[in-house]
Each structure stands twice: as C-alpha cells, then as structure tokens.
C-alpha cells in the first residue's frame, strides 16, 4: 500500500487557537492590521509541500529551523461533508508578521508531513481531541481542540460561506502556540512525532544540507 496523499487542495487556518488570539489581540487594531480578522484567515499548502509518511524533511535554501505545526486536517468528501481526518505536521519557517501571504514560509518543498492513512469519522468525534508533539521523544506541546476559536462546525461553515470544499480537499484547523507566542521548533537531526488517540502518527526526521 502506498502512503496517503491528499487528492485535493490543502488549506490551513491561522489564529484559530484562543491563546494565540489573546496574545495578538492588543496588536490587532494597530497598523498594518487595523482590525481583528473577521473571516477565517486561510492559506493554501500546495502539492509540492506534501511529504508522504516516512519522508524526511530536508531543510535547504537557507532555512535552518522550522516551526512544528501539530494539527488536525479534516478530509472532505462529497457535498463538502467531512468523511475523515488526519494528523499532520504543518511545518513553516518562523515568521512574526501575519500581514502578507506566507508563501515563502509555508509553501516550501516537503513542508506538510502526512500520515500513512486517514481515520474515518465525523467532526463531533474530534471536538475534544488532544494532539501531542514530541521532539526526540520529549513532549514539546499538547494541542487541545477545545481551545479552538472557531470549533470544527463553525470553521467549516465560515469557510463554506465563500468557497465550496471539494471532494479530496483537506482543511487544517490551525496550530497552537506556546505560552510565549512561539511554536516549538525543529532543526536538522531532530525526530518529530505528532500523535493522538485513534490516529496514524506523523513521524519525521529533519535533515539539513551540509
């Protein structure tokens, strides 16, 4: 059996955890943002980012360190209904500005680590899911989906207001930050594992160009 790959477009969601929202809230009304986001803030993870199960992450082109992005991806079937979910590691180059689209930070080759298979189910199955991120065996973050700003049904409804999710699309629900607003990071030599009960884990070895 070959490892799972998304059949459609993969979308990510920014600022969907309460802790990061609260850390940002004082700055949201300042330049250049001028106001808090109203619609979901999304980004596209293009197919070049897809890293099937077992593939290493190669850091190159001047990138020495990456944010670990433990999240849940909702897998869409017919009529924009969710038919399953996957754990993913939504890698990105650390960036502190959310003003401009994050193509250079999020769309590099291999920057979406995927599991071997999808877990079938419905969104209500995952409302209280806890996802663990481990680096070299040590837990560096626990992500709790009860802390979402938009819970799964709300996120799907608000995204569906302006675009129809297609069969095979994946909507990632967001990545949480640590108490200081940063995310756990990884560099060459690290082994990073994303896991949660009932899901295929995502295990990635990070490598670098010498």
């Amino acid at each position, binding site marked *: 059996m070959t490892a799972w790959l*998304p*059949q459609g477009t993969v979308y990510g969601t920014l600022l969907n955890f309460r802790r990061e929202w609260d850390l940002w809230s004082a700055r949201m009304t300042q330049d250049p943002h001028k*106001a808090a986001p109203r619609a979901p803030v999304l980004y596209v993870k293009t197919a070049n980012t897809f890293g099937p199960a077992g593939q290493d992450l190669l850091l190159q*082109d001047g990138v020495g360190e990456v944010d670990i992005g433990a999240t849940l991806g909702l897998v869409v079937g017919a009529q924009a209904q969710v038919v399953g979910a996957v754990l993913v590691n939504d890698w990105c180059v650390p960036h502190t500005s959310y*003003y401009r689209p994050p193509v250079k930070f999020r769309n590099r080759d291999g920057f979406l680590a995927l599991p071997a298979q999808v877990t079938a189910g419905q969104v209500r199955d995952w409302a209280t899911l806890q996802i663990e991120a481990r680096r070299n065996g040590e837990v560096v973050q626990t992500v709790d989906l009860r802390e979402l700003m938009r819970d799964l049904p709300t996120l799907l409804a608000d995204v569906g207001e302006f*675009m129809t999710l297609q069969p095979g699309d994946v909507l990632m629900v967001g990545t949480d930050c640590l108490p200081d607003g940063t995310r756990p990071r990884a560099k060459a030599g690290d082994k990073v594992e994303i896991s949660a009960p009932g899901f295929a884990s995502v295990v990635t070895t990070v490598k670098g160009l010498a």
Partner: protein
Amino acid sequence: MKHARIAWSGAIHDAVESDGQLLLTQGPHAGRRVAFDEVVWLPPLAPVPQARTVIALGLNYADHAKELAFKAPEEPLAFMKSQASLIGHQALTKRPEGVAYMHYECELAVVIGRTARHVKKADAYDHIAGYTVANDYAIRDYLENWYRPNLRVKNRDTCTPIGPWLVDAADVPNPMALKLQTTVNGKVTQSGSTADMIFDVPTLIEYFSGFMTLHPGDLILTGTPDGIVDCQPGDVIVTEIESIGALTNTIVTPSC
C-alpha cells in the same frame, strides 16, 4: 497552436483552434469540427495527478501598485489559490449581495511545462508550456489585513475565469511585450502591456523555483495593470491579451 478543453456531446474533449472553429483532437470524435458557440469551455488545462499549484501575484505592475496606494514591492507579493476557484470562458461569476466593489483583473497566466526547481532566469522559458488569460476577480469589501489578500477576497467559487486558449509558448515569441485590455459591456476600462510588469516572467520562475518545485500544469497569474472598475450583475467582462485570447465572463447575482 491554441488548445482548448471543452464539453460537447456529453463528454470532455481536447481541441485546437482551426479556421475559427474547434477541431477535436482525441476520442471518438477526433477530427470533427465544432463551432465555438456549440461547446462549454472549460479551463484549458489538462488534469494533473495532485492539486494544481496556482500562484497569483499582487501589485506586479507599477501603475496598479500606485493605484492601490502602495509602493512597488521589493520582492514578488504572491498568494496561492486553489484549482477549484477556476472556471472557463463564457462562464457566470457570482457577485455577492450587498458588496460595494468587485473588480476584474486581467492577467497573463503562465502554464508550467517542465518541472522547475532552482531555475535561473536565463533558462526559465524552457520550463513554460504556454500562456492563457486569467481574470482574477477581487471583492474588495472582504479585504482584511491578515495574509492579505486573504482567501475570502481571492479564492471564491466562480471568481477566477481562465482561458479560452492555452497558447503554445513557441507561438509567443515575446510574452513580455503583449497588450492587455479589459472591456466592460464593450467599453475599454483597462489597458496596459506585459512590458510593465515589475517582476517579469523569467524573474518570477527563478524566484518561486528558488524555494519550491513547480510541476507541469502549475499556474502563475502574473498580476494586473491599472484600470480596475466595479462590475455589476449583468455586466459582460472581456479580458484580452494580444496573441493569447479574449476571455469573456458575465457577472450574475447570487440567486442566478
């Protein structure tokens, strides 16, 4: 050659332009000619095995950057779109209720022909299959300063017409000197030249392939010049690029 992808007689066909008609090039009807108005025009893009990467440029013409009150960017301002936002020639695009400003953007669309990674400007044209016309509509009411331009503005259902033709790169000797024009109900509202891009096509391919792999069938929508105006339901918008084609689209209300 000008390639199209059409629906006709209950199936999807590849075709080429031939003496003002469509010549079907594969399948049971290969060799048959059909009229332009007999078919449904699809985006002129062959299916790809994984999600098609659709890169779009903002502020890539000096005059448009000025129009929108920004200084010209120092590096390409790019955002990603989904394949699902694409629709074909002569399609209907929905204008939401209650918005004040929805505008077209006539753009030269580059279709990648050969995998590109770490490609230098001098070699960039070797990686291009051809060109088409895109109309990258925006609804400015929904613009927010978070990953701007945000997807609610730029990744809406029906809001990225593309086509009608994919023109072979070999037939476009200088893509950096093509006239662009948009008409609304026959009146010219936008005119410019690809010569005025801030980051030209080879520069864009070098830039993107410097950190990501571009695959055959991937798209780069290269931005739009000055001259954007509001479009209302019933308006017929024709975005046209010299030697590439004229892409027609009609704005409709949400209930249409």
